[in-house]
């Protein structure tokens, strides 16, 4: 190295440090910027005409009524939660089970194949999933369950589950892979069966990572728009069974924002729904964080 270059070395270090700092800080900046933008778009109405009571307790969502406009989002909130919950009910056991299988039971060659398939599954655009829900799942549900309509909560939940499983599997598998092999050796040498090793050693050792996997899956389910819009039937009601159509918060924004006049009350309420979604995912993440910390402290 020439003396001149060596002279530049501290500057280079400094530049790299600044650049990495900028990358980190920009992430925070963008999150806040998005939040502020979404909030600003809905702020006017939020502080003047917005009726929180109606929004959270009424199921009457008539944003374009000529005589009596009502913005009751309870059915939409229930829709989002019921579809996401059912989706997780299906996806978490399958996802974690698949992660355990791939990391602990699978012969190496099958493992490579499976991982490629799972990545592929994660790469399918959501509109394609929606299309599958609209056509294949739709007729399948009508035929199998004798349901009046195949576009319903169950359909949406299966599609969402299929979309979340790849995330849960790949992050869950990473978490299990990160468990030191010495733990497995210790367990095996003490005479554990495979299941004892998995339930008593691996799952507890990997729980933070597995929890993160589940949380990301939930995040995906709550935030997903296009697929649920196409698969759930998009009808505003509180479902009494899994075979009834529902409508979610996200699908409502996607379907109505294009038609709502900019800065109208309707437009602003849709942004308030955006804020609500933001809050939901925020709360999920914070909860996950607290759970992880709580576990870590013990």
């Amino acid at each position, binding site marked *: 190295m020439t003396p001149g270059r060596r002279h530049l070395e501290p500057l280079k270090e400094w530049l790299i440090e600044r650049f990495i700092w900028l990358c980190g800080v920009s992430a925070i900046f963008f999150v806040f910027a998005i939040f502020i933008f979404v909030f600003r778009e809905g702020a006017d109405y939020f502080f003047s005409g917005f009726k929180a009571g109606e929004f959270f307790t009424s199921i009457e969502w008539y944003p374009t009524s000529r005589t009596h406009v009502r913005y009751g989002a309870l059915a939409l909130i229930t829709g989002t939660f019921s579809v996401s919950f059912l989706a997780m009910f299906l996806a978490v056991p399958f996802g974690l089970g698949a992660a355990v299988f791939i990391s602990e039971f699978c012969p190496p060659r099958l493992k490579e194949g499976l991982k490629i398939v799972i990545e592929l599954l994660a790469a399918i655009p959501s509109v394609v999933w929606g299309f599958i829900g609209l056509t294949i799942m739709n007729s399948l549900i009508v035929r199998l369950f004798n349901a009046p309509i195949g576009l319903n909560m169950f359909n949406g939940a299966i599609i969402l589950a299929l979309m979340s499983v790849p995330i849960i599997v790949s992050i869950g598998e990473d978490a299990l892979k990160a468990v030191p092999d010495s733990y497995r050796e210790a367990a095996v040498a003490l005479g554990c*069966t495979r299941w004892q090793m998995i339930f008593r050693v691996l799952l507890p050792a990997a729980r933070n990572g597995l929890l993160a996997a589940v949380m990301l899956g939930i995040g995906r389910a709550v935030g997903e728009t296009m697929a649920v819009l196409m698969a759930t039937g998009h009808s505003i009601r509180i479902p009494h069974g899994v075979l009834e159509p529902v409508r979610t918060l996200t699908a409502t924004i996607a379907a109505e924002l294009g038609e709502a006049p900019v800065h109208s009350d309707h437009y602003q309420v849709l942004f308030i729904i955006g804020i609500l979604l933001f809050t939901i995912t925020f709360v999920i993440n914070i909860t996950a964080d607290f759970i992880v910390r709580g576990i870590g402290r013990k």
Partner: protein
Amino acid sequence: MSDLAYSIVTRDLSLWYGEFQALRSVSFKARNGLITALIGPSGCGKTTLLRCFNRVNERYGNVTTTGEIRLLGKNIYDEDVSLIELRKSVGMVFQRPNPLPLTVYENIVFGLHIHSPARLNASALDEAVEQALTDVGLWMDLKDKQKSKATSLSLDQQQKLCIARLLPLKPEIILMDEPCSALDVEATRQVEELMLELAGRYTIIIVTHNMAQAKRVSHECAFMLMGELIEHSRTEDLFIRPLDKRTAEYIEGRFG
């Protein structure tokens, strides 16, 4: 049944990892209640031999074994041998201390839990923990730390804990794979003393790189080279009057 003087007897034991032959017809005997050291240069097969005795080698999948291994008179490759029971009676201590990411207490009762289908009585468990920790000389240090994470202990405490967690299962044989290589001088001395205290009650096989350690702790010593068992005799004899030229060269430090 003269063999019962020996806890471990192998006959013509050969082992392959895929195409690579790691053991070449090893016939080895370990006397009951003594400490037998396996020495030899890296890659000589001493760890492989050790890992045959509780069959943890089989974890790797592409392992082929021929020959016979008898533990306490029983061929461990017989169809009716339960790996779980085998590993219950043959404990293992690893090179790096590997306590499970649980509390000290849970680490010690772990073996009891996995080997008993019924719920165990809490006071019996407490007693087992106290006994095990006393046996390895950790009770005074850890009696108030039973609820703390085992992974947060010092390395030598971790290694002693790894020995302690074997004891409630009442093993016959304890296998040690370079148990002191991660420890400092003082901790090594303590673990060696512990081994000498445990000898008699348990048959101990220790793999070590450290010839001085083999001299200090073992009653018998086996020298291995390139997958073969070259020489096995009383430790004093092996170090003072080795019969094989290769043994002599190794203990003089000409190779390895």
